[in-house]
């Protein structure tokens, strides 16, 4: 089985994050492998291992698109257990919106499937920076694949995948045939940590550097030029300031109700 996992290098949400530059794009200093992508990687590794792993011809390719630093998300994925990596990087990609991103990633996935077809594309439920959740569905549309998004469980039986998907009003069992695109939630598994052996092994694994020319995409189709939306203004929201803090002396519940009444919230 050949699985491509999308991994993204995102600003660490533990710290303040900023927009920068004329296109109001996210400042990517202090970036890490997106936490939500670890669940997708773990799901890929489990599927591969259940089929005999790399020895039985299973492949888990970690693919990242982004500037030079994004290769760190690929390296971390190799340490965790991906069999190889690919890093799509090109100056022309800067400022890509979801449409341009999905266009470039679709071309990269087709490129990775040129020798032998990709059976499954796995992604996290959202990136932790853009958080639009648009890219998985757009990739499925561009690649002509069935999409199974927000999977909280995933099984592959032969050519069929069966997933569970929790909605607000109902929980669904969803089936699709391979090849397919699946995005997974943080409910699906417990991602493993890289161990010493994994970190050593990762040094011998191959990372393919891809440019737009390699994947046959014209620079005008991506980046700020090829994006279908433009961010026009960005304003930092004034930080919330702490209000009144009291210590309960037996009447805090009453004081809370007085506060709510004063705010006309009752």
């Amino acid at each position, binding site marked *: 089985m050949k699985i491509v996992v999308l991994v993204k290098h995102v600003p660490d949400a533990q710290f303040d994050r900023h927009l920068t530059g004329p296109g109001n794009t996210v400042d990517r200093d202090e970036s890490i492998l997106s936490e939500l992508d670890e669940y997708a990687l773990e799901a890929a590794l489990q599927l591969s291992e259940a089929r005999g792993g790399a020895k039985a011809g299973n492949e888990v390719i970690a693919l990242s698109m982004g500037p030079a630093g994004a290769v760190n998300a690929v390296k971390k994925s190799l340490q965790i257990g991906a069999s190889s990596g690919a890093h799509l990087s090109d100056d022309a990609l800067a400022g890509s919106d979801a449409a341009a991103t999905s266009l470039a990633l679709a071309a990269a996935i087709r490129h990775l499937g040129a020798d032998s077809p990709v059976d499954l594309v796995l992604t996290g439920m959202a990136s932790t920076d853009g958080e*639009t959740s648009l890219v998985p569905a757009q990739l499925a549309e561009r690649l002509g694949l069935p999409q199974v998004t927000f999977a909280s469980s995933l099984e592959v039986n032969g050519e069929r995948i069966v997933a569970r998907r929790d909605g607000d009003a109902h929980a669904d069992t969803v089936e699709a045939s391979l090849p397919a695109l699946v995005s997974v939630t943080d409910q699906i598994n417990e991602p493993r940590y890289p161990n010493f052996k994994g970190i050593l092994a990762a040094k011998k694994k191959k990372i393919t550097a891809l440019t737009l020319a390699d994947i046959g995409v014209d620079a005008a189709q991506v980046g700020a030029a090829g994006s*279908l939306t433009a961010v026009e203004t960005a304003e930092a929201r004034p930080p919330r300031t702490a209000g*009144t803090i009291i210590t*309960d002396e037996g009447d805090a*519940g*009453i004081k809370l109700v007085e506060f709510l009444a004063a705010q006309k919230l009752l």
Partner: protein
Amino acid sequence: MAKALVFIDNPGAALKKSSLELLTIARSLGDVVVAVNGELHDDVVAALGAQGASALYRPSATDLDDYLVAPKAAYLAAVVAASGAGTVLLENTADGKEIAARLGVKLNAGVITDVVGVDADGTAHKSVLAGSYTTTAKARTAVAVLTIKPNSVDVGTPAAASTPETATIDVPADATANAARVTGRAEKPVSGRPELTEARIVVAGGRGVDGDFGPLEELADVLGGALGASRAATDAGWIGHDYQVGQTGKTVSPQLYISAGISGAIQQKAGMQTSKVIVAINKDAESPIFEIADFGIVGDLFKVVPQATEEIKKRKG
């Protein structure tokens, strides 16, 4: 006149508030046309007329709910072609965003999600990076696809009602061919409380509730609010994942958010810091939640919350 298309997926017996918000925004953009999926009650048709809809589109197929989003996107693309709409408005739900995503590719249209306001010229207002920035964005394409967050606009009604013309749109024959199929569906029990993402008031509990959401449920009910939870509480299995507020759960933006026994890790804050008023109750005076609370109580939630509930009951007589 410019046309704005509103998609309402399974409107049910009456229009939801979030649908009324979409219709209100659509009216500010031009002539309102509506596409629905699923059963259509006469009352809903009348309500859409009262909202000023001039045309109403229905799909030729009745089984779109048997598949995940793809066929709905194909249907909507056909509606856009038939109606000539320049803007498409959808709910900012998981399905709404994915239908928008696929529609964007089909029509080569710019898609903007998490929108909280739209100007007459199509400029969309949104907040990004967990509410730390407000931005304006615009689609650079002939058609714009926007998904609108609930509680974004005050619902209005037009001066004149209309009688929408109805039309059936053929769903492309290949729309379901390669889509994921829903083969099992388990309905979840209905709580009777408002839906978390749409609620005006949210009462949320975390690690500090120690398995007992009872007092928070009572407070939520007396306030007419929804119940929420931090990831620590859902991971502990005290309450379903559906209740989770935060980066990997739901984003809420209510008038009032009461946080009880939640320390306020950044991922939790990410899901609630655009709430208008934040109240925090926590034993630990050092909890980061107090940094953003309008009213903070350092105390035991099992004493404070029931006392507040009793006081509200007393005041309401």
